[in-house]
């Protein structure tokens, strides 16, 4: 009974955390929905750990709890791989942005330099003109 209390409470706290993060718009919906889906499965299991014993028996696993443990680890590994993949995609995107930014900055610098050079030429020409008028 004590154990059921601990696992059930943990499940409920996790659920509250996810809902709160979604409410504050701190989690993208796709991740929020993923974890909510997980909790919908996990909370009944935390209250009734024997729920999966029959399914476990079918797969040759002695206890339903062991099956849940195994599936949980596989699921978490998959989530980690997915996150690495997302980070790789993000890095590729920021890399492209950094390159675009550097190219634009180089272009602006070149234009500014050209304009300054033009300006210098114009001032020199006007000065020459003034000098010739005076002379």
């Amino acid at each position, binding site marked *: 009974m004590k154990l059921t209390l601990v696992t059930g409470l943990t499940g409920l706290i996790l659920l509250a955390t996810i809902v709160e993060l979604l409410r504050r718009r701190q989690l993208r919906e796709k991740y929020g929905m993923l974890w909510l889906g997980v909790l919908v499965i996990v909370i009944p299991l935390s209250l009734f750990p024997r729920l999966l014993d029959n399914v476990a028996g079918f797969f040759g696993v002695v206890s339903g709890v062991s099956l849940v443990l195994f599936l949980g680890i596989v699921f978490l590994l998959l989530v980690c791989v997915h996150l690495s993949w997302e980070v790789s995609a993000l890095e590729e995107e920021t*890399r492209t942005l950094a*390159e675009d*930014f*550097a*190219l634009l*900055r*180089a272009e602006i*610098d070149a234009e500014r330099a050209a304009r300054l050079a033009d300006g210098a030429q114009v001032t020199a020409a006007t000065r020459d003109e003034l000098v010739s008028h005076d002379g």
Partner: protein
Amino acid sequence: MVNGKRVLIIIPALNESGSIADVVGEVRGELPGVDVLVVDDGSTDRTAAVAAAAGARVAKLPYNLGVGGAMRLGYRYARDNDYDVAIQIDADGQHDPRYVPKLVDLLDDNDLVIGARFAGEGDYSVRGPRRWAMVMLSGVLSRVAKTKLTDTTSGFRAANRRVIEMFAGWYPAEYLGDTVETLVHTARRGYRIRQVPVAMRKRMAGTPSHSPAKAMIYLGRAFAVLTLALIRR
């Protein structure tokens, strides 16, 4: 212009304010009429300012991307500004710009030309795991590229328009990706690769590492990168 071709020299530089002015100055002195683009790969020193003062065009990345990131930027610049040839040169001064016309000439019949150490000219030697890595890389890559390649990690390369176009859209930013993986990729797509012997000089600044542990790690990473490059599409 070198032999009637618009040439861009791309120099990726990370914290090279000690040598970059001399390198840019030498390139401009030896090769008048050639444009120099220094890609500052997120340096924390005055590399960009020093390079600009020396007369190079400078593209400054907001943070460090690695040689591969800097080089793709360089190739994109070359493509956007319609250059016929793009040549990569190291910022530490070990590549002699007097070899550039030779590389450009060879681009008439090839798509990518590599300036290679250990190919007869100059004196440059390595031993231990680093040597094994180089033997492994050159053996496998020579077979893939169907031409003799002895210095596959050389950062002295010339690319024609076709290869510039390809590199502008695809250039790995990972470790050794800029050298090993690009060679596999280029060879697999049927581009002609050729190496020419060049003498390397001592670096103007900085020192190469000689730790045996680092050399072993290098060998392992080289093997991993090569294997990945071969099984990738």
